[in-house]
């Protein structure tokens, strides 16, 4: 089934994290711009989830709006 194949792929991706020997091409001390608050995908979650609610209430499409990651990469 489509769903279980997708899940399997995702779990495989997570498992790959064990083989993290790829040298990062952006070093942690080079992430100054990415750590800038204006580079966050979602600066104000309350505000952005509301406008997504307005769109989804009036349109047929749903989903696909999530965004994680980025930032300073600290810790």
């Amino acid at each position: 089934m489509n769903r279980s194949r997708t899940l399997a792929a995702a779990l495989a991706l997570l498992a790959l994290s064990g083989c993290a020997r790829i040298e990062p091409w952006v070093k942690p001390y080079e992430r100054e711009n990415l750590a800038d608050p204006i580079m966050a995908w979602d600066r104000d979650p309350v505000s952005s989830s509301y406008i997504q609610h307005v769109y989804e209430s009036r349109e047929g499409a749903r989903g696909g709006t999530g965004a994680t990651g980025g930032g300073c990469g600290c810790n």
Partner: protein
Amino acid sequence: MQLSLSARSLACLLAAACLLGPRAASAGVLPDDRADLMYHYYDGGGVTIDGPSVLVRKKFAEKYAVNASYYVDMVSSASIDVVTRASPYSEQRTQYGFGVEYLRDKVTYAASFSNSKENDYNADTTSFSISQDMFGDLTTVALSFSRGQDDVMRRGASSFREQVDRRIYGIDVSQIASRKLILGLSFETISEEGFLNNPYREVRYCVTSQCLDYDYEFERYPRTRTGNAFAVRGRYYLPYRAALQGDYRWYTDTWDISSHTFEVAYTHPVGERLTLDAHYRFYTQNSADFYSDLFPRQNAQNFLARDKELAAMSSHTVGFGVAYEFRIRGVGFLDKTTVNLRYDRMQFSYDDFRDLRPTGTARPPGTEPLYQFDANVVRLFFSGWF
């Protein structure tokens, strides 16, 4: 008789994605403690909805975080559906939510629950997500699962009680491409089963074969719907300190709806305290396969819909925002506070949904003007970090 909102069919779905969505999780560092207090206002197509939205989040020992939210929609509706078939009404929808997060090494685990209630619809949503940083923290992968259970009721018919069971699976990958560019990819699949339509809405059909007049019968929807959304996005840092973002989403589902969403957004800080935002969004979809503005006869198909949300339509949104950062003297526990105002103007136009409001001149059924309307959306909010 009163018609309920199209918005309320979403209460459920949104509770998952909404204020406490697993998206709040970002592996590596838990988000800062903050409280947001927002007033939201929507006015368009004869409907006015406003109310508060509150969110508070707090972390402990950089390992655990909790959040709680409260949201109200106060609705005053004289929408086209209501005006043509019923009388204007008011109602209220209230939503509560809470969530927890746990961070260990580079993995964030999150769980949340929310409940949305209005007089003829209840929605409970439970969500889980796992998010992990990998490949030198350049990549973040998040998996999420959400389960919603809704109760659909009907005012004036106390014996009417139906259910909706909803499952949402999502994968989100965020990739740092360079010192200035971050890319994102999302996939989400939404499966619903149960009573998926609005119990008050009706479709219209031609009464005679020459279709000189029309009458109404209740909508009949399939009991299942599965939709898939694929989205890509990128955010780029401009050298003079500004950010530019582009988004694209493709959505398809088993009701034959296919849609494209394009958005561009620009963020420009001015000085130390001010941040300006602007964005443009374009949305287009085709109609569901059992949708029609006017059916040729009564009981023309197994499934019948005349919900404009399922019609062939497009919308344009232009929006602006201003955020101002300030410090409140005498309130030591707040590190930073901002006041924000955002305004959006939306324009909806329908290719196969007609405006049936009486105009004075009688029009043969099926030749009424196509419906379109504009909406104003305002968000005014205060945020405090502590």
